[in-house]
């Protein structure tokens, strides 16, 4: 079912007129309210009045995570702080997180977008939405929660973890819609098997999975093992959180971008020139209605392409292809964004540790595991085993504290990790997604 027939099926021309109006208004507001954006526009020699058509978007400068870092925590907020009613955060590239804010109206738009997402994936009023996205600074939990309430479904705010209890609740409460990361969905399937619970005895009908990259193979596996329809959803906290784009249950092919709220572009990551629909490149978003934390041409670093062909579900929004890669070195481990630079940051904060490290990511069963290899230099070497073991544990603890993920630290001999010749290879990802 289409949640908002009026907007989700707008003829392209009317949609583009709406986008332009919203874009012009947004740019004017951002220019007036955020000195950082104002300066960037001045440097690029562009004024809000230069935006006369959607094509003029390309005149505006890009925004990157680095811009967000430079303005930590609230420097890019575009409203007086009294109007902010919610703050979320995700990983930054170093020690500090990326902080985003929402006004009351932003929260309202977000609920609308997630209601659309749920509806797009085949959920409806009367459903029991089992929301296993993490509640907290991460946008997944609360974003999905508000959307499910807006939809009129009954939400179980179970958050992540404690899989056995999750499955018990699915059985007892009759969960019909599952929301979590795709890898956690597989983990639930594993635990069901251990508990001897037959997925077909559950009422699960559909699952909305996002926050990490996955593949068609994984979809097939999840659908088979959990006996539900698996829908890919997309979002990122810098732009909104979940609710930026969603597959429709009819096609399960490409994610409809809610274009009345977000203006997508695909750009060539080398030349930064916009590319036409159909071509692969980096996905870039401009928010059209955000009040507290608008972004202009935010570079997601995700690789995708736009699908302009009409869709059988009736929505007129372009679709984005499932994310096929990244233009940077960000990893997503159990739904958590991890930059190698963050791990480097931890290592460098420990005295004597040199910045020679290698991150190895693997998938054991359905869980991502991460090993960090650190070279043992003379500065940290000891003739006592306990000293070295303590060092390993300390690094593990500090990575856990900063990133919220467990890893295993392996001490290796010096010079075993490849030295940078141009670009050092810091990550080996052995996961077959």
């Amino acid at each position, binding site marked *: 079912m289409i949640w908002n027939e009026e907007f989700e099926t707008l003829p392209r021309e009317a949609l583009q007129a709406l986008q332009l109006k919203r874009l012009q208004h947004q740019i004017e507001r951002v220019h007036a309210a955020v000195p950082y954006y104002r300066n960037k526009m001045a440097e690029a020699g562009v004024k809000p009045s230069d935006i006369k058509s959607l094509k003029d978007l390309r005149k505006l400068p890009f925004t990157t995570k680095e811009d967000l870092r430079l303005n930590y925590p609230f420097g890019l907020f575009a409203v007086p702080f009294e109007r902010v009613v919610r703050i979320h955060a995700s990983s930054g590239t170093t020690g500090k997180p990326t902080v985003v804010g929402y006004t009351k109206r932003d929260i309202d738009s977000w609920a609308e977008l997630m209601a659309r997402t749920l509806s797009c994936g085949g959920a409806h009023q009367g459903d029991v939405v089992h929301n296993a996205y993490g509640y907290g600074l991460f946008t997944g939990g609360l974003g999905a929660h508000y959307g499910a309430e807006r939809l009129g479904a009954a939400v179980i705010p179970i958050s992540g973890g404690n899989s056995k209890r999750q499955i018990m609740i699915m059985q007892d409460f009759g969960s019909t819609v599952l929301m979590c990361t795709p890898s956690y969905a597989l983990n639930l399937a594993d635990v069901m098997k251990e508990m001897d619970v037959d997925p077909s005895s559950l009422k699960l009908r559909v699952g909305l999975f996002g926050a990490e990259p996955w593949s068609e193979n994984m979809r097939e596996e999840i659908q088979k093992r959990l006996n539900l329809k698996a829908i890919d959803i997309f979002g990122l906290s810098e732009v909104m959180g979940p609710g930026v784009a969603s597959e429709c249950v009819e096609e399960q092919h490409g994610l409809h971008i809610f274009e009345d709220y977000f203006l997508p572009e695909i750009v060539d990551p080398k030349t930064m020139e916009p590319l036409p629909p159909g071509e692969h490149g980096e996905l870039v978003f401009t928010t059209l209605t955000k009040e507290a934390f608008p972004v202009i041409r935010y570079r997601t670093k995700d690789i995708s392409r736009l699908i302009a062909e009409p869709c059988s579900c009736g929505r007129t929004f372009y679709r984005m292809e499932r994310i096929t890669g990244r233009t940077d070195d960000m990893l997503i481990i159990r739904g958590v964004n991890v930059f190698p630079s963050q791990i480097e940051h931890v290592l460098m904060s420990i005295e004597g540790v040199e910045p020679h490290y290698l991150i190895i990511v693997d998938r054991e069963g359905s869980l991502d595991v991460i090993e960090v290899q650190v070279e*043992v230099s003379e500065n940290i070497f000891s003739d*006592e085993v306990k000293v*070295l073991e303590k060092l390993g544990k300390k690094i593990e603890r500090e990575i856990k504290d900063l990133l919220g993920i467990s890893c295993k630290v392996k*001490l290796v*001999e010096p*010079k075993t990790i490849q030295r940078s010749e141009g670009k050092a290879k810091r990550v080996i990802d052995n996961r077959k997604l």
Partner: protein
Amino acid sequence: MKVEQISIFLENKSGRLADVATVLAGAGINIRALSLADTTDFGILRLIVNDTEKAKQVLKDNGFTVGKTEVIAVEVPDRPGGLAHILSVMKDEGVNVEYMYAFVQRSGGNAIIIFRFDELEKSIHALQKAGVVILKGEDVYAL
């Protein structure tokens, strides 16, 4: 009273111990005593050699992480109760043994035990007071 020991970091992979031995052999260095501490992922090889500085240098040149530590070499009568006596002295002093390893001399009836204590000076003092024979570094290198 103190003996210099070198320690080498080794990853648990085949051939690494042989590599150390080959490097030392190439430099004409004689190993007097050795012990290997191992964990799941790595090992620490501890050696007393006839030329500590040279051994350290050639190993470093060959890319190994090498450390130098001071240990104590004690001569123990090679008969029941020899080790127990020394350990009870250290227990009474409240000194901890981090690790130890022993070897028997080719001639003569005594064993030599290498100790790594957490408090070096205090240990030497206590052992001397108890009449335990502590070997000089030169004596151990030249064994």
